[in-house]
């Protein structure tokens, strides 16, 4: 049987090692479809990227320019129509040459026309071309001075604006046809009928506002905007998640670093006053070594009493005295906190607040380690000292209302429609905490992420 295998394997090797279907040219042609791939694949990607970028830039420029052009259109609607007027009047007059106008200082109208009393009325001397081709100043034309419209026109600003327009029925009709209401208003306000009935062309002259006028206008516009912005920044009812680190301490005992997290709801009471309530989980460790609160030592006294009674007495005949010293209490609580506080936003911007309230707690777990030195002095005056430690644990037990007061300051930092709040706080103990009536003061910093803090 071994021969058959060897022979077969040998035959297979011979056949396939020297295999050739003589189609290597076709095979190479097929390979070239895939290889080399650098030229085939990378180039189009660059081209596509380049084309896409070019289109984006072109579109961006188009829209940007189009927008600015529209702004200009809106601002200078009246001014734009003037070439039409000029053309019409030119054709009406049909003179061989257009007289060059000469602007003169405002002068009193000898006719005592109402137009003369208007501060917007100016007088011009218009040279006329004579039939001999020489310019002759024939009469003085009165012109209505109306707004140069750089900003959207407003009644109170228009009185100061100074675009000189031909006092001409055609001109007025053209303005009316273009539905420039504000210009019409000005015309109504400044109904000036010039003495001259002839349709004489006057090129409108745009007179810029003085800096003072411009600034006045701008300040009026700006004065309106903040009201709108203030509205948008007003905080409404919201939800916030927070996490924080804090130090627990009591008197001159060592401070312990702890952490917690939770969620709060802020409900709007008035524009600047909110009630905030929520729930959180926090770890609270504290160690009393130097100063033990009386409430805690009373709660722990059963330990020391038991310890003193349980002190070893190896010599029954001798009289012993037992004492306890170097007491320390180490507490570890996992609190479920329920803070309730009032938040007051003193500024209209509502970018910071002052909060005060109370915190109540229930306990997911409690662990107390009570350590002390037990000294036993025998009749010979020899003192034996032994370090003792007792531990007590409990789970989900008790509820303490108003264990601590809350005093906090929150500083809001907007992130889009939401905001991030840095809230340093101080929580002095106003009640006892846990089974052993702990007293814990806390200082810490909460980082709060506030959802939907602003109105849109």
């Amino acid at each position, binding site marked *: 049987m071994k021969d058959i295998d060897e*022979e077969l*394997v040998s035959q297979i090797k011979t056949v396939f090692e020297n*295999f050739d279907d003589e189609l*290597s040219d076709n095979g190479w042609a097929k390979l070239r479809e895939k290889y080399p791939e650098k030229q085939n694949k990378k180039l189009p990607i660059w081209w596509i990227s380049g084309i896409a970028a070019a289109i984006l830039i072109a579109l961006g420029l188009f829209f940007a320019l189009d927008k600015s052009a529209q702004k200009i259109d809106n601002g200078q609607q009246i001014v734009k129509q003037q070439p039409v007027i000029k053309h019409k009047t030119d054709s009406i007059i049909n003179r061989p040459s257009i007289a060059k106008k000469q602007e003169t200082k405002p002068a009193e109208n000898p006719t005592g026309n109402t137009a003369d009393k208007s501060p917007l009325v100016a007088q011009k001397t218009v040279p006329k071309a004579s039939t001999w081709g020489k310019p002759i100043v024939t009469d003085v034309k009165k012109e209505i001075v109306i707004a140069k419209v750089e900003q959207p026109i407003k009644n109170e600003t228009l009185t100061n604006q100074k675009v000189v327009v031909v006092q001409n029925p055609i001109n007025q009709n053209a303005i009316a046809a273009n539905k420039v209401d504000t210009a019409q208003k000005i015309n109504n306000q400044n109904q000036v009928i010039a003495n001259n009935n002839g349709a004489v062309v006057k090129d409108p002259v745009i007179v810029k506002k003085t800096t003072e006028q411009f600034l006045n206008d701008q300040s009026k516009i700006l004065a309106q905007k903040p009201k709108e912005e203030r509205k948008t920044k007003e905080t409404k009812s919201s939800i916030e998640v927070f996490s924080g680190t804090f130090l627990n301490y009591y008197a001159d005992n060592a401070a312990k670093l702890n952490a917690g997290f939770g969620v709060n709801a802020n409900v709007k009471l008035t524009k600047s006053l909110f009630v905030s309530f929520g729930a959180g989980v926090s770890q609270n460790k504290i160690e009393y070594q130097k100063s033990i609160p009386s409430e805690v030592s009373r709660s722990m006294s059963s330990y020391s009493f038991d310890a003193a009674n349980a002190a070893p007495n190896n010599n029954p005949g001798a009289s012993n005295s037992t004492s306890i010293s170097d007491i320390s209490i180490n507490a570890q609580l996992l609190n479920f906190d329920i803070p309730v506080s009032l938040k007051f936003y003193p500024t209209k911007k509502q970018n910071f607040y002052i909060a005060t309230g109370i915190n109540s707690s229930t306990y997911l777990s409690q662990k107390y380690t009570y350590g002390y030195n037990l000294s036993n002095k025998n009749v010979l005056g020899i003192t034996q000292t032994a370090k003792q430690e007792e531990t007590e644990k409990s789970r989900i037990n008790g509820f303490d209302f108003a264990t601590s007061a809350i005093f906090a300051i929150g500083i809001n930092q907007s992130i889009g429609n939401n905001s991030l709040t840095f809230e340093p706080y101080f929580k002095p103990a106003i009640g006892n905490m846990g089974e052993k009536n702990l007293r814990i003061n806390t200082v810490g910093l909460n980082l709060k992420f506030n959802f939907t803090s602003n109105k849109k």
Partner: protein
Amino acid sequence: MSKPQTPNLEELIHYCKSGDLQSQEMLYKHFYGYALGICLRYLYNREDALEAVNDSFIKVFKSIDSFREDAHFKAWFRKILVNTALDYKRKNMRFSQAIELVDTEPQTTYSSALDNLSAKDILGLMKNLNETQSLVFNLYEIDGYSHKEIGKMLNIPESSSRTYLTRAKQTLQSLLITHSIYKR
């Protein structure tokens, strides 16, 4: 170094390293038959085998820089071919299984005695084996992989590889005897 008109393998590899397309074509055509033979043993189908061959050559051209010129090119290339063929088989497993339902009918007529078996005869014989038996037979007997290596490549225990090989041999022997290809 100017390129000789009929370079030897070492020179060919050298020029391929520099990305010379003409040298790559020469290398391709030189090893085309050898590569197609190996891939055919695993894939049975010429079109599939050619795909695997071309993919293997592309791998060679891309990684030829890492090939040490003192090493045995054929052995290195063989490994690439076998791995590429196995990958191709795995990738197209569903498809090939679907084909097999129609196409796996064992070949029962062979044109000649053992030492005259053609490539087509051998492939016909191999089709009588199941997929794994065929792979193990090829890998172990023809391409010289150990059972340990085969176990890793096919993701099967080493002992299973031995069993598949034994069964493959038994099947082939019985086929050869039944069809009087091999006479005792």
